[in-house]
């Protein structure tokens, strides 16, 4: 089993043959955990039932991408609940989730697992804990900016930005596909945009202001 790396520093101990071997603590101390993490994620993912997960593993079994994941969704939930914050947001799992909602539909505890994954993605993007030039957050960010500026997304612009910021080589490899789409009239070069851009920007800015105090 892959135990999460801990922050404890390795100590040296003599092995049987006299060679020095690094020894690492494989278990986290409770004091190193972020104990409020589970509660926080549950709140952001719309459901306290995250905390009552029965660890049945139905989520991992229905997930079409679970065999690429480092931790199955069941383990991610367990980590979130117990406060393994770093391990959860550093997990590859959250980037693989394609939001197909199969787990959410099948979960016997009605946990909004897809929302949990979204919440973890946002947490990871906010703290910048993903490899540089990692395509998924780059794509999300490019899409976010495009829609903020124009109100709509244009696939040609989106893909060009994605490839330039991640792997320009991929652009060459997919250029043929792009050309074919263009010839079939399915990749217009026109930038799609709405008329009331200022109003949309005001709308998005209004969301940023902090929530007013809830009435008691």
């Amino acid at each position: 089993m892959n135990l999460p790396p801990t922050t404890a520093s390795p100590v040296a101990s003599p092995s049987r043959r006299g060679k020095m071997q690094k020894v690492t603590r494989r278990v986290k101390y409770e004091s190193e955990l972020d104990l409020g993490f589970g509660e926080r994620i549950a709140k952001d993912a719309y459901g306290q039932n995250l905390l009552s997960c029965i660890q049945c593993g139905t989520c991992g079994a229905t997930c079409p991408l679970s065999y690429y994941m480092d931790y199955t969704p069941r383990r991610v939930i367990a980590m979130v609940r117990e406060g393994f914050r770093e391990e959860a947001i550093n997990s590859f799992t959250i980037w693989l989730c394609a939001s197909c909602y199969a787990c959410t539909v099948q979960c016997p505890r009605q946990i909004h697992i897809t929302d949990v994954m979204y919440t973890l993605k946002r947490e990871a993007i906010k703290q910048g804990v993903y490899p540089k030039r990692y395509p998924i957050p780059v794509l999300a960010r490019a899409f976010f900016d495009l829609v903020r500026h124009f109100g709509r997304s244009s696939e040609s612009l989106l893909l060009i930005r994605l490839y330039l910021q991640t792997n320009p080589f991929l652009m060459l490899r997919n250029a043929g596909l792009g050309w074919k789409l263009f010839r079939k009239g399915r990749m217009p070069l026109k930038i799609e945009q709405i008329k009331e851009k200022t109003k949309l920007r005001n709308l998005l800015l209004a969301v940023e202001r902090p929530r007013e105090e809830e009435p008691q």
Partner: protein
Amino acid sequence: MKYMYYPGCSLKSTGRPYEESLLAIFRALEVDLQEVRDWNCCGATAYASIDEKKAFGLAARNLALAELQHGPSNGEGVNLVAPCSACFLVLTKSQKYFDTYPEVQRDVTRALEAAELDYKGKTRVRHPLDVLVNDIGIERVQKRVTNPMKGIRIASYYGCQVVRPFATFDDAMYPTSMDRLMSAAGATPVDWPLKTRCCGGSLTGTIPEAGLRLNQHLLNEAVRKKADAIVTCCPLCQFNLECFQSQINSRYAEDIHVPVMYFTQFLGLSFGLSEHDLGIQRLFVKPDFRRPAVEKGAPAHV
């Protein structure tokens, strides 16, 4: 009944044949679709990964515009047709969350005020499948069929987001509405257990190792079930299954050539509409339904 229509960004670019064929068959059925003026992007899955509150704000603007432009609805609610799966999911999800969580509703109301809009919550988000099967009805569709697609074996691919988890018009894991429409068009729907298995969405571009594999499984299963074509109701599924076929063939040493078309295009063919009006010429793998597959005495595959 009047329907408001929210195309979404995909239907204006890679999904253009979807829009062309959808409008064509609704015209043929004499159902009015009125495009929401100045609609904005729904936010798709990427927006919620950056800022969820803004994602709800984007969706709310569209719902509010639909309500406003529809005019008085006599207490029936405003039907908003969203053909793209991602748009459909995002809009239904937002609607559900406004109704369920007061804090979301407060955020959204405040955001809409900044854009001089007001949303009363009357919009009902509908998928064309839902409208065709439950409002227009299979019988009316069947009556319009002038060119029955006899003997054509069709694998209906719903993808994930149309039926999960906020849609109520069909089963979340084993839906049948598209299969019933295919039967109405005279075709033979094949029993295809992967019909709601995810195609990976944008993973084909971001993590091709995982994304292309998912599509390979889907295509292989369709070939194994002797499907003459895959029909789908999602622009991203159509794009993945069709446009990456050559990459899948070279990467995994396969030899797959399956036409992947929109269910609206197939229905349009059965209505006798012209290929050009349905955007058939925009497909990469041209469907050829002239050979009778079953009548040649091929064994029946279920």
